[in-house]
């Protein structure tokens, strides 16, 4: 009887614990979900609504506000006005991602495998320039790379560059500016994934007479794919939406979609147009990323982002 009671009591406890266990995931994801709802889903919905509104006709500049009219024409206007910039931004974003990957991988590799006791120091050094606001860093590049700046004018004097050469106001300047600013977002996830690789696995590959090249291609690179994936996300998405680097380093034919959206929102206060532009960009990126994630698989990735 007593035993029965005790086991009953035990079962109750277990049930309670199981109940708590069942609720735990919701409790743990709650803040994240709430965050996404407040700062992503609701603004996204507001933007969608706004993009389908039209301005109420008014006298002069009197503030008449907007009314919801299901006016989808703004989307075709947006596409017609800015498809060049959309494509250009995706293109820039892709190049930036490749450049940062090529530049960041060796650095992350070196720190993870050869950093020894000073890994954190090297990482810190890597991040040090980024303690300065990225706007100021881009402005500094503008100053350094200007036509009469120390780099270009001296290289011209040494006849390494042709007279009248300039780098600012070109696509290269904008891509380089974004790539430079994105570097840590590529290096850090790469470093984490490389650092996590079990050194015994590498040892084993060597023991089996794999050449250094084979070790890298067959062991290290595949194991670091989650890092590449995370680095891609953290680099590509902000790069596509960037507008500051073009503002500071770009020229007449390097305008990115972010600049078009900024102008529509802040300068022209054409909220429906700006909203449709933003919405096209976000939905486009979202679809692209979902496909990408599907192809590369997301199970391991979650550990790295």
């Amino acid at each position: 009887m007593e035993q029965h009671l005790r086991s009953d009591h035990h079962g109750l406890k277990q049930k309670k614990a199981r109940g708590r266990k069942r609720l735990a995931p919701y409790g743990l994801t709650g803040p994240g979900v709430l965050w996404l709802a407040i700062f992503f889903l609701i603004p996204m919905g507001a933007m969608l609504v706004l993009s389908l509104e039209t301005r109420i006709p008014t006298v002069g500049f009197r503030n008449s506000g907007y009314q919801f009219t299901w006016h989808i024409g703004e989307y075709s206007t947006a596409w017609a006005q800015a498809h060049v910039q959309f494509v250009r931004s995706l293109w820039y974003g892709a190049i930036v991602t490749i450049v940062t990957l090529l530049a960041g991988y060796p650095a992350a590799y070196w720190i993870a495998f050869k950093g020894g006791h000073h890994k954190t120091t090297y990482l810190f050094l890597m991040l040090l320039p980024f303690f300065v606001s990225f706007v100021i860093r881009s402005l500094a590049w503008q100053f350094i790379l200007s036509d009469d700046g120390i780099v270009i004018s001296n290289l011209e004097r040494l006849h390494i560059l042709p007279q009248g050469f300039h780098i600012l106001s070109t696509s290269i300047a904008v891509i380089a500016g974004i790539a430079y600013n994105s570097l840590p977002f590529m290096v850090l996830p790469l470093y984490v994934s490389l650092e996590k690789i079990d050194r015994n696995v590498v040892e084993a590959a060597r023991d089996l007479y794999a050449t250094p090249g084979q070790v890298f291609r067959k062991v290290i690179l595949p194991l670091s794919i989650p890092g590449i994936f995370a680095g891609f996300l953290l680099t590509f998405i902000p790069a596509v939406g960037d507008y500051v680097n073009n503002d500071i380093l770009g020229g007449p034919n390097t305008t990115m979609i972010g600049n078009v959206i900024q102008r529509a929102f802040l300068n022209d206060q054409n909220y429906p147009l700006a909203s449709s532009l933003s919405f096209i960009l976000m939905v486009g990126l979202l679809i692209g990323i979902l496909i990408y994630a599907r192809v590369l698989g997301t199970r391991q990735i979650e550990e790295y982002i």
Partner: protein
Amino acid sequence: MDPTIDPAFVRGLTQRRFSRRDLIRYAGVGAGALSLSSILAACGVKSSGGAAGSESTAAFDWASQSLHHQLNFANWPYYIDVSHGTHPTLDTFTQKTGIQVNYKPVINDNQAFYAKLKPSLEQGKPTGWDIVVITNGAQLSELIDNGWLIPLDLSQLPNFTANASPTIKNPTYDPGNKYTVAWQSGFTGIAYSPRATAALGREPNSLNDLFDPSVAGHVGMMSDNTELGSIGLLKLGIEPSTSTPDNWTQAAAVLQKQKDDGIPRGYFDQGYINQLENGNTWITQAWSGDVFIAQQSGYPELKFIVPNEGVMFWHDNMMIPVGAANPLDALTYMNYVYDPQVAALMANYIWYITPVPAAKPIVATLPGGKAVASSPLVFPDQAMLDKTHQYYVYKGTSDLDQWNNTFDPIITG
């Protein structure tokens, strides 16, 4: 300030290497959420502003106002006299009137600043400012049309009546100075470096030089579409203030061709002057005061000219937003800056066009003031004024949209 030290020299040491307004402007990048909230507010608060019509403020009761000895003043950076970290004219004002001035150079961009004021004004809340300085243009028209400015009592501005330049009295954008009085004015013309002269084989003298293939890739145009469009109109010989949408299309075509020919280096905001200083551009659209400052701060080779076609004449204006806590203090200050002595001290620092012509002989007696007093860019003579053009005054939102849609594709293309 030590009178033996050329104030221009000190400014050269202390002033921007980066564009003075750029840094603060981009500081907003991090605070993007802020602008988003104003956008959300804009879509959420529908037409509530319309209710506060201009009629309610037309009857502003100046007689019942009293001084609160407090003034919150929002202005543009480097737009008032500075000496040893203080503003002498503000200090004198406080001594004379007992009014403490909370002076903040927070305005970097008409549109962005207006976007910050707008949510408060729409909800009928005070903006926190007693005086703001905004350029004539769409934002000013919007403030006036929505009844968001307190009408001024000109009878309490005797200095304005006595000393204001005819160029800023009764302007087209605010007939009868009902809501605004000018702070400073300026010209939009052409600035160039000796390289432009070398490339062209002569001194630039015309807007056509901004379109000349021999300076291709080194021409600075402005990203402000009012400035850009106006230059396009002037080049075609069309008076911007009386232009029609058809004219705009013609001007846009000229500017588009300029771009297609690879002539502009870029479309710049306040940073245009750095582009010129750094040799990226050789010839550029420019604001008169900036070039004067650049000359005094290490770039004496830069020149500002009034092209044959003329210059655009703009005005930055003081105004009192509705809901201001201290309107009488604001009005007192507005009257104060139209005192020629005060205007002279400011003109000697700001180097744009002072609204008080009588300040000229006083400026000439100030340290470093001779060059300032003799500059037609600070004290324009009649010959200079004859070459000025007025901006198109947007009639309303749809009008402005049309202008934007005409010229924006060139800038963001």
